[in-house]
């Protein structure tokens, strides 16, 4: 079997013509009239990743059971559910970070552009599918070096600062951080505020020019204002990268997601358009969860 050991630059499939957006806006549900959806309907959506019958277990303990999902560029997909329901585990399996845990086992298949991710060399996969964590984890370096890190470690020769500047600046711009830090790019990243740190982590992830961006509760350690900034940012990003966000904040999922997957105890209970899932859930458990009965 041919393994993908292509060195960088990363191969990218030419995008097919965008399909028209699949989701029709459903009337907002009663419970969510207070939360305003901050986004319009997606302009287009292209299927990039496919989760197909995935089960994940840690040392015999099942964390995710038989989940199937599409992940599309042009849309934001939110994974919601009470803590311990396996949503983070599923997210981490998308770029094979679960393999860092020795006891983790995965069944089923995850495909990126129709290629099984187990056939893609992990470092290559993780550059195409990057991840931002719950706790902002900027490296103990300057702001510039944080973003340049991935570029430097990809190139075969050590790049000069001058040559990296455009890419770093554009990544910071896409993360909406550039204006705030442009005068002190050499400052320690750990001295930034929590919200800025998290946007720096997003910029760092974007610098790798990923195709899919995974966000693991990116706002849970942040104040409401920073949360707002990051939510706006995520919505802006959805046309360039497929965005998957794990959140336990239902309002947040409602505000920014186009599709929502509700997981409970490792099962995918319901998957559907955000307005539909929140407005008129098909499943009893979903209905109870979104109306605050448990979780």
């Amino acid at each position: 079997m041919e393994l993908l050991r292509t060195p960088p630059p990363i191969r990218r499939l030419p995008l097919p013509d965008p399909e028209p957006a699949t989701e029709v806006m459903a009337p907002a549900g009663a419970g969510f009239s207070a939360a305003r959806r901050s986004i319009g309907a997606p302009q287009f959506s292209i299927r990039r990743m496919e989760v197909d019958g995935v089960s994940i277990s840690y040392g015999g303990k099942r964390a995710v059971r038989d989940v199937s999902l599409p992940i599309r560029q042009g849309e934001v997909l939110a994974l919601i559910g009470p803590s311990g329901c396996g949503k983070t585990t599923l997210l981490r399996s998308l770029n094979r970070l679960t393999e860092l845990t020795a006891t983790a086992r995965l069944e089923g298949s995850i495909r990126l552009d129709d290629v099984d991710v187990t056939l893609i060399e992990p470092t290559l996969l993780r550059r195409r599918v990057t991840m931002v964590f719950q706790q902002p984890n900027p490296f103990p370096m300057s702001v510039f070096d944080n973003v340049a890190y991935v570029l430097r470690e990809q190139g075969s020769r050590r790049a000069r600062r001058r040559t990296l500047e455009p890419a770093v600046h554009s990544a910071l711009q896409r993360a909406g951080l550039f204006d705030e830090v442009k005068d002190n790019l050499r400052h320690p990243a750990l001295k930034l505020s929590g919200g800025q740190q998290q946007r720096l982590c997003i910029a760092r992830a974007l610098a790798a020019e990923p195709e899919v961006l995974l966000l693991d509760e990116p706002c849970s350690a942040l104040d409401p204002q920073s949360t707002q900034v990051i939510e706006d940012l995520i919505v802006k990003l959805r046309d360039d990268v497929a965005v998957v966000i794990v959140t336990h904040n239902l309002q947040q999922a409602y505000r920014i997601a186009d599709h929502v997957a509700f997981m409970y105890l490792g099962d995918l209970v319901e998957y559907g358009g955000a307005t539909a899932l929140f407005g008129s859930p098909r499943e009893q458990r979903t209905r109870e969860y979104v109306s605050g009965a448990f979780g």
Partner: protein
Amino acid sequence: MEDQYSPEYGPSWPDRRVERLLGALVVFVVGLLLALIAVVIVRAWPSFAHNGPAWFGPGGSVEDQLNAISLSAATGSHYIYTFHAWPLIWSTILITGGAVLLALFAALFVSVFIVEFAPGWLANVLQPVVRFLASVPSVIYGLIGVVVLVPFIGNHLVSEEQKASVAGVISLTGYSLLAAVTVLTVMIAPLMVSIFSDGLRAVKPGWLEGSLALGVNRWRTVWKIGVRSARPAIVAGTVLALARAIGEAVMLAMISGSVAFAPNPADGLIFIYEPSRPLAPTIVKNIDQLSSPPFNATLFSIAAVLLFAAATASLAGHLARRAMRKYGAA
């Protein structure tokens, strides 16, 4: 404030009194260190005053100078202090420098190996082994050196022609730079490995995970994030090892050759087989002369240089660590 309680109601050990008692003890220990520095400098002064900067320079045979100093004690008043310590200093630089550099290189890789790449069982076994090796008394390393390594170098590594080529100057018996550097490296490397690997283990997992999640491979992640963040621990371990190496007296007295000879790299590779004697072993070898005043001053002047070197290393480490903390490394 102090006596606001009447004795019946106040605590039997008022805080104020305890604080003063402990504070006095702290002041005593600080004073002890100052006294040590003062004593060493005062005792060393005659030697430095007589020699000036020439103390550190080359010139003449150190053994002859030491003999003259020793003999002059008998005259009662006409003490001789002439002492040009360059061969001892050069030997110290070569041996400690060589050992610390070698050990630093090896310890970095070994600690990365233990923390990141060794299979779990091996890492579990190695951890106590490293600590054990780091706590083996130096004299035992010296014993192995003198019984095993020195004869091996003398009988197998140094050829007869090499011995003959320098026969008029020095005899090559195996007591050598090579032996000293090797044994010193083996002695300080475990110390460094133990401190380095503690530092590597303390690196925030989030940083390593963040790097892996960006598709940077494990080697680069360990090196660019792990080792980089652990730099303060690496500096601390290196400084500690350097201090040990500079101050190591007895073990080096056993294997360095104990001849005040300055190995000359210009001689070619043979110089690593040449004997020498660093500063600290010179004190041990001449300790029975301590009661003669000029010799006492000379030995204390050597001690002053050792003290200064150790203090400098420690200060440099301090400054380096402060600079590294700027970006928030642990």
